[in-house]
């Protein structure tokens, strides 16, 4: 057996959502992948190459699917990809065998050579499950390996089995016949032993309860805010700000002396001296304010946010939040599951909009993507909002959030009212809680942070560079004068603030940083922060929106965005 005439060129990992395909994928290939404890983390397929017996083989990680009759776009991706693979690795959640075997039955009928990874096998014992692997192999007719993506158990064996894979000649059966066969198989090979409920299981049930669930949710959100603030402020006040002031500043002062204040190069690299000194927040030089904003003001909060988000993702709490928020989300034309892309959007709008692929209809995806790009400020911008307004008192930060939240609710409700169609119902598997693996969690945070720094730093440095050059050649004032009157009439902002909005198209954090030297009143700052959050999403979000939903939808969303920004900014200007 396993003596396939043609060489294996392409392998696919396929299985139900949230069975750990991506962890296995990264174990097999060494490629870093984002993994979480909720169904739908992988919304597109990932590719890599591995070497088997000296031959290079392509391996793809497919989005999870419950069956080969897809229901959401992410599942369609999986089913489509399956047509041209030479070998299937069917990943099964060993703790949920019966349900997982349905897809296995369908896969066997496709007559692809196949092997099975009984994943999460490390959890079998404490859940009181025992599975006879050898009998399962005999009954299914394909090689089965007990694996654990988290601990790495069985990965080597799984790789070895790739060459032993064989197609099984199974006739196509009806839905009913498949279930009958699964019943027989499970009865033969699986034993469940009774055991007491663990603390985690009690917490699992309580956190989906219609009463305790909300108590736990409020607690979780409160603690989340505290943790993000603690980590963010701690890093700024005790690590990064002292570092910049005691080690980096003397170097800059030396450089400033060399360049002569007022010279072209000095204005660009160091910026303006405030009372004869470099001011990291106000000087606006490529070497002063740009790195300070990104590394001291923004980075700590982005790090804190991703630490927390990654913990919530891996623990399995987020789907429970989706259930609790389902009622509210329906008022916005979405269902509870849409909270996942929204939460991702709080980190960065780009993965947020990509994440809407877990939603069924085009209508939902449009509503969710529009709400994310208008109403959800990314972590970098939020850090700046806290940095700029926090000094005036927490209530101003709260005011910005309150305005954005109200806009978010009304905009969603309005889109739900005016857009044709209906919102599908929630239909979501809620995974068990799992204690996140510290190693995987830190890895995930590391890659997210690295992505952030690599993408942000060049744009921030370049933006400040270009603005400073424009100022030197006096184009700056020309453009300010052109748009200025509109800006001051509608929002009550000085004409220079137009640059904040223009730079905001590239990156929101450094744009917000440009507000500081403008010496605005608190009213102007609040309006500017709201307008900056709501107006044009950064260019990266624009591009991904167009790719995912098309030009027509992008133009519609942009129109909505322009109208609502003018309206809300104008209203704040009149009311405050």
């Amino acid at each position, binding site marked *: 057996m396993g003596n396939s005439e043609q060489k294996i060129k392409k392998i696919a990992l396929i299985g139900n959502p949230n069975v750990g395909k991506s962890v296995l994928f990264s174990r097999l290939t060494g490629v870093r992948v984002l993994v979480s404890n909720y169904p739908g983390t992988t919304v597109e397929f990932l590719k890599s190459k591995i070497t088997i017996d000296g031959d290079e083989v392509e391996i793809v990680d497919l989005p999870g699917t*419950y*069956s080969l*009759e897809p*229901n959401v776009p992410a599942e369609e991706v999986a089913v489509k990809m399956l047509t041209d693979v030479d070998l299937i690795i069917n990943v099964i959640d060993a*703790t*949920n065998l*019966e*349900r997982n075997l*349905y*897809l296995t039955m369908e896969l066997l009928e496709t007559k692809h050579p196949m092997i099975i990874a009984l994943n999460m096998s490390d959890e079998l014992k404490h*859940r009181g499950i025992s599975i006879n692997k050898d009998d399962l192999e005999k009954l299914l007719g394909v090689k089965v390996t007990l694996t654990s993506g988290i601990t790495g158990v069985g990965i080597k064996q799984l790789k070895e089995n790739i060459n032993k894979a064989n197609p099984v000649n199974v006739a196509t059966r009806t*839905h009913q016949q498949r*279930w009958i066969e699964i019943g027989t198989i499970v009865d033969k090979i699986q034993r469940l032993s009774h055991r007491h409920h663990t603390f985690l299981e009690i917490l*699992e*049930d309580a956190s*989906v*309860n*219609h009463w305790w*669930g909300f108590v736990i949710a409020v607690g979780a959100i409160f603690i989340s805010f505290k943790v993000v603030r603690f980590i963010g402020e701690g890093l700024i006040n005790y690590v990064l700000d002292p570092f910049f002031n005691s080690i980096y500043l003397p170097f800059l002062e030396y450089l400033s002396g060399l360049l002569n204040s007022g010279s072209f190069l000095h204005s660009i690299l160091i910026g303006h001296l405030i009372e004869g000194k470099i001011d990291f927040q106000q000087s606006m030089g490529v070497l002063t304010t740009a790195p300070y904003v990104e590394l001291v003001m923004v980075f700590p909060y982005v790090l804190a946010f991703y630490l927390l988000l990654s913990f919530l993702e891996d623990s399995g709490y987020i*789907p429970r939040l*989706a*259930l609790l928020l*389902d*009622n509210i989300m329906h008022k916005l034309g979405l*269902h*509870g599951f849409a909270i996942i892309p929204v939460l991702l959007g709080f980190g960065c709008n780009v993965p947020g909009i990509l994440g809407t692929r877990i939603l069924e209809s085009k209508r939902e995806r449009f509503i969710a993507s529009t709400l994310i790009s208008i109403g959800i400020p990314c972590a970098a911008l939020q850090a700046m909002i806290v940095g700029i307004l926090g000094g005036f008192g927490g209530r101003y930060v709260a005011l910005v959030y309150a305005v954005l939240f109200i806009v978010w609710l009304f905009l969603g409700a309005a889109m739900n009212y005016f857009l044709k169609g209906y919102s*599908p*119902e*929630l*239909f*979501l*598997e*809620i*995974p*068990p809680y799992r204690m996140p693996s510290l190693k995987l969690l830190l890895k995930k945070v590391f890659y997210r942070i690295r992505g952030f720094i690599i993408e942000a730093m060049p744009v921030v440095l370049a933006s400040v560079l270009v603005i400073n050059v424009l100022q030197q050649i006096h184009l700056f004032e020309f453009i300010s004068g052109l748009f200025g009157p509109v800006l001051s009439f509608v929002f009550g902002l000085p004409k220079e603030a137009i640059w904040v909005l223009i730079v905001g198209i590239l990156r929101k954090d450094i744009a917000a940083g440009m507000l500081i030297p403008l010496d605005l009143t608190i009213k102007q700052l609040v309006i500017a922060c709201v307008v900056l959050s709501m107006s044009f999403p950064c260019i990266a979000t624009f591009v991904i929106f167009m790719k995912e939903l098309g030009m027509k939808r992008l133009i519609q969303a942009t129109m909505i965005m322009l109208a609502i920004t003018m309206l809300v900014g104008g209203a704040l200007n009149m009311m405050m």
Partner: protein
Amino acid sequence: MKRISLIKMKARQTGTILEIEGGSAFEKRLAAMGISIGKHVTKLSAFVMRGPVAIKVGRTVVALGYGMASKVWVIPNKK
């Protein structure tokens, strides 16, 4: 024993699934998650205002919209 829908079940009540209305596509989608006729089910939560319903079948916890839940009929167990 009278049959009731998942909606009418109380939180923490258990029962056995008797019938699934709403067409074979819906039935298949539920089945793929391990929810099918004859299965033992526990209702975990009942939200107000036609909210979703969370149920546990075997080791799987699934959240269903109100409309879907109203199509799943159950024979409740006696307390």
